[in-house]
């Protein structure tokens, strides 16, 4: 039986965020730093109140956690992408990018296409609504390049006809992108 695993990154793409889970055109995020991509799923805290006379739970109180996050490191500082991530003034004629003092939170949709690690199936993960804040990491040295450090706070979206908010989707497809029909025969 085919296995659905998630591993390796073939490519990451981005677009303007969609609150309805619909994106038609994606742009590439070039040169992903090895080992930099991490999806953190935060879990809420459960507290229990017991009755005085025993260990029996009287009530459970669930405290939601901070929202989920996604971190991505990029080695390439493409001016078009920089203008999405930072508040900049870009002059294409001279490739001059000037960074404004104000901070910017980029509202992006992010699509991660994984590698087919097992059984020729690769996973496509899509975050339709994220708030991305960007910093730098890595010293600027002879041996390494400065890295863009993206931290995306994952927001929700609502698809047409559904009443519950969603955060992300995972879909497995064949290595060539063909959709898999997993309907039982």
């Amino acid at each position: 039986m085919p296995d659905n695993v998630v591993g390796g990154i073939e490519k990451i793409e981005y677009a303007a965020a969609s609150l309805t889970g619909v994106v038609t055109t994606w742009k590439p995020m070039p040169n992903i730093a090895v080992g930099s991509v991490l999806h953190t799923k935060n879990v809420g805290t459960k507290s229990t109140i017991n009755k005085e006379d025993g260990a029996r739970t009287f009530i459970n109180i669930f405290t939601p956690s901070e929202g989920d996050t996604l971190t991505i490191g990029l080695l390439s500082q493409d001016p078009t992408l920089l203008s999405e991530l930072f508040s900049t003034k870009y002059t294409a004629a001279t490739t001059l990018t000037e960074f404004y003092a104000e901070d910017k939170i980029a509202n992006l949709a992010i699509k991660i296409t994984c590698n087919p690690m097992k059984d020729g199936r690769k996973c496509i993960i899509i975050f339709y609504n994220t708030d991305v804040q960007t910093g730098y990491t890595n010293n600027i040295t002879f041996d390494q390049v400065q890295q863009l450090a993206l931290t995306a706070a994952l927001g929700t979206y609502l698809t047409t006809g559904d009443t519950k908010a969603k955060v992300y989707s995972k879909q497995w497809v064949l290595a060539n992108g063909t959709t898999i029909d997993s309907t039982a025969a």
Partner: protein
Amino acid sequence: MRDSFDITIDVRGLLNVPSIISLLGADGKIYQTERPTGRALFTDLVVNSLGITNEQVQQGAGNVNCYVPSITSGGVKIADQAKTMIIARVVLSLLDERYMTNYQTWIQDENTLMQDTDGSFFYNIPFRYRSMQTNFKRV
């Protein structure tokens, strides 16, 4: 992705310039990987590769060996250090801290005078090579 052949091709390209060619003389050659036999009387350069990694930033290494015909002193064949030094210093200047479009080279390890199995003397110049891959997908 770049391979060992790219290293020898690229470095040979850096060395195949008038400042080197004029020092090699009419019969001198710049060889990739190995020097043919029977060249003891010629001034040659040989560029070889020690391999390259397959990572986002590819790191490679190689050698340039500067062969100069030996001279006879007191009935003994010895290295022509004066000519070797002239050629080696031009090679060093051409390979150290070169930032090309698709790759970089620099001199890192010690370079030294050595003797080949056929008795030829050569000056060994180890160099490093680096290239950043685009569309690297093993992330």
